């Protein structure tokens, strides 16, 4: 007979710090702060915990010869933790692209308005392990819109650590 139940109190928050490698090459960092809003652990011999959390994220990535990209937004994180931990993250936020190099006008004068804002949805699917200090690797696809006449797809690999407060 399988028994299910809500186990323990939902902890206050989780913090995650990750490297954020755009295209797997260009370095950056991502910081997440999430608050669990629902958790459920079954009581089988090898219990599995499922959790839903909401929160926010911010980060930055440096692409040499192209741009610095700073981003922030809200996220919804679903995770399942048994021996290993799997998670899925949906996020929606804004990004500021700051091209590397001077922004100029046709007459050669500097354009102080260089850089652009973009809507930045993203989805990531992660895998990891650990208990008190947890590690994860999370391939992430994100879009930047409007980028030229549409949305531009980008890929990153996040790898980092998270812990509960």
């Amino acid at each position: 007979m399988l028994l299910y139940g809500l186990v323990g109190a939902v902890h206050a928050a989780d913090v995650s710090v990750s490297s954020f490698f755009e295209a797997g090459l260009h370095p950056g960092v991502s910081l997440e702060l999430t608050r669990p809003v629902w958790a459920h652990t079954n009581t089988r011999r090898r219990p599995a915990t499922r959790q839903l959390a909401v929160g926010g994220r911010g980060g930055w990535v440096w692409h040499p010869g192209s741009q610095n990209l700073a981003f922030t937004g809200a996220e919804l994180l679903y995770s399942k933790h048994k021996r290993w931990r799997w998670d899925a993250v949906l996020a929606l936020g804004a990004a500021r692209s700051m091209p590397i190099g001077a922004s100029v006008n046709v007459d050669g004068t500097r354009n102080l308005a260089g850089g652009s804002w973009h809507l930045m949805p993203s989805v990531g699917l992660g895998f990891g392990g650990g208990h008190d200090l947890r590690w994860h690797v999370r391939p992430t696809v994100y879009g930047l819109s409007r980028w030229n006449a549409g949305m531009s797809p980008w890929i990153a690999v996040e790898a980092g650590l998270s812990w509960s407060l």
Partner: protein
Amino acid sequence: MVALMLLACSGPLDEQVWLSVDDADLRLRMQGDESTGLWVVMLHGGPGGNGHEYDLGLWKDRVEEKGVLVTWDQRGQGASRGHYEGDTITLQRMADDTHAVVRYVRSRAGDQADIVLMGHSWGGTLGTAALVRTDVQDELAGWVEVDGAHDIPRLNRYALQMFVDIGSAEIDAGRNVRTWREIIDFAEGVDPDDISLDEGGQINNYAFTAEELMVEGWDDSVGLGEAFGWGVGTPVPWWAGASSGNRTSDLLLEEVEATSLTEEMHAIEVPTLLMWGAYDFVCPPQLGHDAAGVIGDSELILFEDSGHSPMDSEAQTFARVLTDWLDTI
């Protein structure tokens, strides 16, 4: 003394800027020796390509010894970005961008500099459009068209004829018979006076297939390490560049497929070098002959062992011909 010290300390120019032109930020990279006063502005292929594709190779190295090579990403392509509606993407818009880039280079290089415009493939379409439909010639000392696509209706007709003529000879010689038979069957099934967009796309596909059968050779001046560095140094990941570039290409497709500039090329008054691969099925060499017949001050060079990219297949000869011609500017 101070001037000599500054000269001794200053290496070759390597500068990147983002040029703001009507809701777009165009990425320009300028590399080479700016002391000579020669600036070559490169128009990349596509639509859907990028300037970084031309940031490698012997010809690039040689041009940068002669002066400054300016590679740039056209609107909606490569790392260029902006916020604008798709229906604003037209050949005229892109030609105006080209004019804007040349005006910026003029402001950067000074009044005494010689600016040469150079275009490959779609860059030949764009450069020709800029030359005949804007005032860019006022700033230019020359124009170099390499296997350009300045007349798509003629291009398609010539490609169909090349498929049949060269394919038949190859079949007679017993080479790649099955593939040539397929290409010829396709070519003979197309009405050259009524070519659809789909048929135009298929002509382009078969053109690259045919070239693979006829052309060998690559630019062996590029080492593995240099090629790797070039690959990872791209200013935009290929999937992001391809997504944006393909969209731009789709937006331009209908207009470009109908673009025929040969009759307008008599308006090109700057010295012109036309460089074509003899086995270019993508932009057949007859387009070069047509251009040479219309442009007053022009010279046509055919590369007998090349297809669409003689800068790769005959790198040494291409670099020599180009730099010799630049010496005459």
